[in-house]
């Protein structure tokens, strides 16, 4: 049984066809497509107008690549929230129209649940399915959440960021130091070359839920460190490099980064990872979890993956592949499978929900 997934909640316009909840037959993401020329070379960003431009060719390509006809589909799944209303509307409305025209049922999917299912799908495909109860850490530029996940995909919120998302901390620290956006990849590439114990970042104790995250203080601590270490010349040099070449190679970045800054990056990355893993492990302990699922764009971070492996946690930790970490539609189609089995269909008058929560 094949499900077409459509995702347009933020910057990416994506479509995918997934069979039986495990086999990704196609997964097309407009901002990463090799055939940029075909769509005018525009990287979809922010705008519902850009989503509008991309949605039809992206869906068509996902269907073509998987050799699927609309009438072969068991369901059409679309992200209903959370996200920008204008962006969500494009994917959701297109999914509704396809559903209306073909009679194929519509399934509404929560974007955050989609991220969790990206990891669940790959664990199943690898023959090592996730065991429940599980803790899901969803960590990206816009989200940093901990959920309890029970059999039958029931969720309970255990913790979340009080201020900045973890991915946002990477982006802002990178920008502050003159690196490119998004900041996660460049910080991750340079961090292994620095001494992570060089700069000591401490996290303020928070009142309230001990499983909540906070990254704003860390961001400010990096800013203060930069202000007190006379780094303006090297930052200006990196900004100049970026103006000349919008995507410098890791070697070019390295040449523009003194050892002291490598140490700062390594220390910062280690602090973010420690904050994520400490709270995720505490969450897992609090519900006696049998597995930990990590998903979202920050799940690409190699330092986070290595630290999770080295932590010697008494349960398996699952990460998605890089392609399914960042926003994609295969995860939306995968999340729709349990709903298809339950007959949990959406009516055609369902509205996009900007503030949709998972639990």
């Amino acid at each position: 049984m094949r499900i077409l997934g459509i995702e347009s909640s933020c910057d990416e316009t994506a479509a995918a066809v997934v069979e039986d909840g495990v086999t990704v037959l196609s997964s097309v993401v407009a901002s990463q497509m090799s055939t940029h020329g075909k769509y005018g070379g525009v990287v979809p960003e922010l705008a519902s107008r850009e989503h509008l431009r991309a949605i039809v060719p992206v869906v068509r390509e996902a269907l073509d690549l998987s050799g699927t006809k609309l009438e072969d589909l068991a369901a059409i799944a679309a992200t209903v929230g959370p996200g920008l209303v204008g962006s969500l509307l494009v994917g959701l409305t297109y999914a509704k129209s396809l559903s209306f025209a073909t009679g194929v049922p519509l399934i509404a999917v929560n974007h955050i649940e989609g991220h969790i299912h990206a990891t669940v799908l790959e664990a199943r495909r690898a023959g090592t399915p996730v065991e429940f109860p599980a803790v899901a850490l969803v960590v990206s530029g816009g989200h940093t959440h901990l959920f309890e996940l029970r059999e039958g995909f029931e969720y309970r919120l255990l913790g979340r960021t009080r201020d900045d998302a973890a991915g946002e901390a990477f982006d802002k620290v990178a920008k502050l130091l003159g690196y490119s956006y998004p900041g996660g990849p460049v910080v991750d590439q340079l961090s292994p070359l620095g001494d992570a114990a060089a700069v000591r970042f401490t996290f303020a104790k928070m009142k309230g839920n001990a499983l909540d995250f906070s990254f704003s203080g860390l961001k400010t601590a990096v800013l203060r460190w930069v202000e007190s270490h006379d780094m303006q010349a090297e930052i200006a040099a990196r900004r100049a490099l970026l103006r000349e070449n919008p995507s410098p190679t890791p070697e070019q970045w390295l040449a523009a980064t003194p050892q002291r800054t490598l140490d700062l990056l390594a220390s910062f990355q280690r602090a973010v990872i420690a904050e994520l893993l400490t709270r995720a492990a505490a969450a897992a302990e609090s519900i006696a979890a049998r597995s930990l699922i990590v998903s979202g764009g920050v799940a690409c971070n190699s330092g986070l993956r290595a630290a999770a492996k080295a932590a010697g946690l008494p349960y398996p930790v699952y990460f998605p592949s890089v392609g399914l970490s960042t926003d994609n539609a295969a995860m939306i189609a995968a999340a729709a499978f349990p709903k298809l089995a339950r007959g949990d269909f959406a009516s055609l008058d369902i509205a996009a929900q900007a503030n949709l929560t998972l639990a």
Partner: protein
Amino acid sequence: MPTYRTASEEETVALGERLARVLPPHGLVLLTGNLGAGKTTLAKGIVSGLGAAPAEEVSSPTFTLIHEYGNGRVYHVDLYRLEEPRELATLGLDELFERDALVLIEWGERFGRFLPAERTEIRIRAVDHDEREIEVTQSL
């Protein structure tokens, strides 16, 4: 309007709650200040002071661009990721300004001339480690 001083994050949230009572009920409020100044912290207080959501539910909209609270009574917007006015035009902010809603915008000063002239500006400045100076001005 006067200038305020706060000595901690908690005090900044509390000031936001007090300001919520004296801000215009709808229209643009620019929150300006450097990285880490406390713009989102003050927004927490304003949103909570208006009874639109508890302070701890208000998080940074940097990546997500627009957060809505209290069924459209308050919008918390962040233009940090935007580079060009063209991108601003596609966000649909004009529609928000037409509503009966308070629209809090971080990093909006970069696009000042594309935003309504009738506005409240709240400038936040880090004085010391945790101390902040907060200045409110209204213009027509």
